[in-house]
């Protein structure tokens, strides 16, 4: 990739793209075996890992990449916009797999804050627990956490499906705008606080509902989507869920807010 540092009269150079490592290059250390590749992330920086992923997926056309020893490094596998399989053997840190559009990711470990933030499509399966803000601003696709998650799961969620087999913390679904969350365990205080739209399903105990979050009426469509997602991700027979939706008393889109409405469709 061409360097893009720009100079100025004071001699201070900067990178117009805001990169911390503007001259980093893909290390080319992955082991490639046919259509699969394996990256050992032990001695690589975040940017090197991401560049190596891009080299393999975009440049080499490899559709199945495994990253070993991610070492809780932050912002791994962000912005991948192509159908592929990515596996992490170990735990990435914050903001893992943000902004992806297409990949099917399996994380054999835990994740920190904001996994899958702004995901557009694809799927992410986390085999253990996740931190707060999981699925923040999710736009589409499926995010499955086979453990517990922290606070504000799916904050500002604009689409897609979040499935948590364990429990969730406070303010889950805060300002949620579309999509659905399927929570098999308990939910903390303020479930669905200030939500605009979307659906929350909770199988366990809800500590308290947030402002304008109200119980919803269960329909055949709800049963279909829950059963289908459980079948796809091999989660066994679904438990019985309570459904919660927006009461439509707090926020409304009307003809005066067309641009705001477009932000959530």
């Amino acid at each position: 990739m061409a360097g893009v540092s720009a100079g100025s009269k004071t001699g201070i150079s900067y990178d117009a793209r805001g990169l911390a490592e503007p001259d980093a290059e893909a290390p080319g250390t992955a082991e490639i075996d046919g259509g699969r590749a394996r990256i050992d992330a032990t001695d690589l920086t975040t940017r090197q890992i991401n560049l190596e992923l891009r080299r393999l997926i975009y440049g080499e056309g490899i559709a199945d990449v495994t990253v070993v020893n991610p070492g809780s490094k932050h912002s791994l596998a962000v912005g991948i916009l192509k159908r592929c399989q990515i596996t992490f053997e170990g735990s990435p840190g914050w903001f893992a797999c943000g902004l992806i559009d297409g990949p099917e990711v399996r994380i054999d470990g835990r994740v920190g804050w904001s996994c899958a933030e702004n995901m557009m499509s694809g799927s992410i399966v986390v085999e253990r627990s996740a931190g707060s803000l999981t699925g923040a601003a999710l736009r589409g696709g499926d995010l499955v956490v086979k453990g517990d998650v922290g606070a504000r799961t799916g904050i500002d969620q604009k689409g897609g499906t979040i499935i948590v087999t364990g429990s969730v913390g406070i303010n889950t679904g805060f300002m949620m705008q579309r999509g659905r969350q399927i929570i098999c365990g308990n939910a903390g205080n303020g479930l669905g606080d200030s939500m605009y739209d979307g659906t929350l399903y909770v199988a366990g105990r809800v500590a308290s509902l947030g402002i304008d979050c109200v119980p919803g009426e269960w329909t055949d469509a709800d049963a279909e989507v829950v059963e289908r997602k459980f079948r796809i991700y091999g989660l066994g027979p679904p438990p019985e869920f309570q459904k919660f939706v927006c009461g439509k008393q707090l926020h409304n889109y009307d003809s005066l807010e067309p641009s705001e409405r477009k932000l959530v469709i």
Partner: protein
Amino acid sequence: MSETTAPRSDTGARTVAIDAEQLAGKRFDYQSDMSLVEGIDLLAATPGDDINWLEDIELLEEDGVPAVFDRYSNSFIKIYFDIPEGRENEMARKVLVKHLMEGNSYGIILKDVHCKYEQVDLGPWVGEPRTVGTDWKPPVLEGWEPPAAH
């Protein structure tokens, strides 16, 4: 968008709508001819074992016309053919995927010029998209000098 900055439609009337046709400067055949989208395989066009992100795509309405929203250009694609009853969302999804597969989404067209990083031009709805953004250079405004303080 405020009243004063609202763009004008083809007829000159002020509008707050963002229309895919207006961005592209033309209407696409598949907006008017259902046979051009009937064959789209939504499962094949999406990751995983169901229609994934398309689950949230529904038939909406813009300017009184059935329309589907293209999140990649923040615009509506109006649908002019008669949609069979009970297939509203399916047809909306097929028109959107056709629009994306053909590379007609304005946000995607802009990638060729403005992409600063290596990435694919289309997206996960096609098998082997082209790579763009490998040789981005900061634009240079002729005659511009940086301010003395910088």
